[in-house]
């Protein structure tokens, strides 16, 4: 009888542990992808602008793709479609956002880099994707991105595609961010 109860206890514990494991897969996935960079996610925090040595011996083509999500009414596009850079050089790139509706909308851009492994070598010093962006109805704005490509980028990569999808997050807007955005608004 006792052996039976011990076994039931162990099996129930396994059930609870596996339920927890299901949830643990979420941070595990994040960490795994962060380390390996395999899902093309770039860092969500700015890197400090180090004095990286510019490698003038090769040029990398950076392609910029930007699209609003289906439910996002903004017009959203990069100022230039592609750029050739030396690894280590710091560049500024602007994205144009325009809110053609009559209501204020908050947007959040989510980046993705292809090929995925190159994401680890694409550094952002400043990016509009780090924060939510507020735009009043009928207005437009330029959203800057400051970046450089790590000179350690493996030689096999000659083109990096940076893609942004812009989501409407008006529902989840954190109003404390309102202060520094008020100049843009109403």
């Amino acid at each position: 009888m006792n052996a039976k109860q011990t076994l039931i206890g162990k099996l129930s514990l396994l059930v609870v542990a596996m339920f927890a494991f299901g949830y643990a897969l979420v941070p595990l996935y994040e960490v795994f992808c962060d380390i390996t960079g395999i899902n093309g996610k770039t860092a969500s925090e700015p890197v400090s602008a180090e004095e990286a040595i510019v490698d003038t011996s090769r040029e990398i083509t950076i392609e910029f793709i930007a699209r609003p999500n289906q439910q996002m009414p903004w017009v959203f596009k990069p100022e230039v479609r592609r750029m050739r850079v030396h690894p280590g050089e710091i560049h500024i790139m602007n994205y144009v956002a325009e809110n053609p509706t009559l209501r204020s909308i908050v947007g959040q851009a989510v980046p993705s880099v292809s090929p995925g492994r190159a994401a680890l070598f694409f550094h952002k010093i400043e990016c509009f994707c780090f924060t939510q962006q507020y735009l009043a109805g009928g207005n437009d704005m330029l959203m800057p991105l400051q970046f450089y490509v790590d000179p350690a980028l493996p030689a096999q990569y000659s083109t990096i595609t940076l893609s942004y999808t812009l989501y409407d997050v008006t529902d989840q807007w954190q109003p404390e961010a309102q202060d520094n955005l008020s100049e843009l608004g109403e």
Partner: protein
Amino acid sequence: MSTVTTADHHDEHHDHKPTGIKRWLFTTNHKDIGSMYLIFALVMFFIGGAMAMVIRLELFQPGLQFVDPQFFNQMTTVHGLIMVFGAVMPAFTGLANWMIPMMIGAPDMALPRMNNWSFWILPFAFLILLMTLFMPGGGPDFGWTFYAPLSTTYSNDTTALFVFSVHIMGISSIMGAINVIVTIVNMRAPGMTWMKMPLFVWTWLITAFLLIMVMPVLAGVVTMVLTDKYFATSFFDAAGGGDPVLFQHIFWFFGHPEVYIMILPAFGIISAIVPTFARKKLFGYASMVYATASIAILSFLVWAHHMFTTGMPVFALLFFMYTTMLIAVPTGVKVFNWVATMWRGAMTFEVPMMFALAFIVLFTIGGLSGVMLAITPADFQYHDTYFVVAHFHYVLVSGAVFSIVAAVYYWLPKWTGHMYDERLGQMHFWCSLISVNLLFFPMHFVGLAGMPRRIPDYALQFADFNAIISVGGFLFGLSQLIFVWVLIKCARGGEKAEARAWEGAEGLEWEVPSPAPYHTFDTPPEVK
């Protein structure tokens, strides 16, 4: 001694039981619960089958004729959910309830009250699921795999009910699995060592561990869908920092072992039937046990082969391709052993054997298309086409379902005390065999030609094949009515079955009289 304990005492040791509905509601008898599981599975098989008939009716001709696309999607979704969680899994649990205690010489399952509970929550789970079809907005329409964001951003308002019904199904399966493990580990008759257990018991033990490992993960992922949709979390929402691909990883971490949950007990059934009708001992018993265990372990390392087209790095593609192909090795061992068991056996071809033989051939066809799908570059072409539909219906219908039908024919004399009508059974077999191939074989062709799955319309060049497939579907559905007829006829009467209903049958279940008395092995048998 109070009267209550006297009554208990009385109940436990004689065939006395409450009558009417109370017998079934309050029963803790493994045979009653097994029967209820099996009948429930049969009812669900017909409900899920009716949905398949709607799907085939719509696809009989190109264009939209009978149902609108959203309802079509609800049909594909609920058909899948019902067949997986309502038909195949409860049927195996029913067989486990009926047969495992009798096979290992135990008087009942280890946890009889929980057994009652794990069955009786199941009808409510499916009531909730089926109810949603009649609600405004309709039932779930995002496929049984409920990929985010289809099940979060784009799903209808009944998604919460879908989630709760999956929770209940999961709880039921987990309780059933715990019961099976505790029974097998603690209640074997003296002398029934691990390596003397019938393979059906072995495969179910391993299946139960798979259930315990992955059903909680399914519960977790549906809960994430629930909170993403209703409570503003962003597990799978890129706008909030989540990742929809993560959904697929967690889902298939459950989903792939789930596939083996639906096939390992089938291996056990076939390993019981083939030796009986070949009148030889099973070839390679130990290798069968090890093969089952290796399949179970490998099943945790292959989940991303469902996701080759999500844009994984080459290393991951290769890893999952190789591990997937590795599974073909233990599976091949099993097929080899079954064939070797039949080699030079004195074979007869009663209905259980016919279904078992059809299983071996058709399951192997399904396995081979599985190996084709495992080839990453080829999978890019096959992904989400009818080729995939053909593959998993070969392994699940002519695999799992055929094995369940074989098991029912095989043990029916033990359950009812009567032999079934052999002539009707053979008719059921041949009708099923022909129609199932008419139904699923041409799906390979339309799939390779590029017909996508889960779409209510198709390009004109697929019209002829789809008409054939639909006819096969209707015939297969009708053929199963013969099965019901056989079952009713056998339950009502027929030739008296002996304790050992089949000449070559081995095992403790054949030592007790047919029909098996309400209580068997009150005193454990001695196993030599």
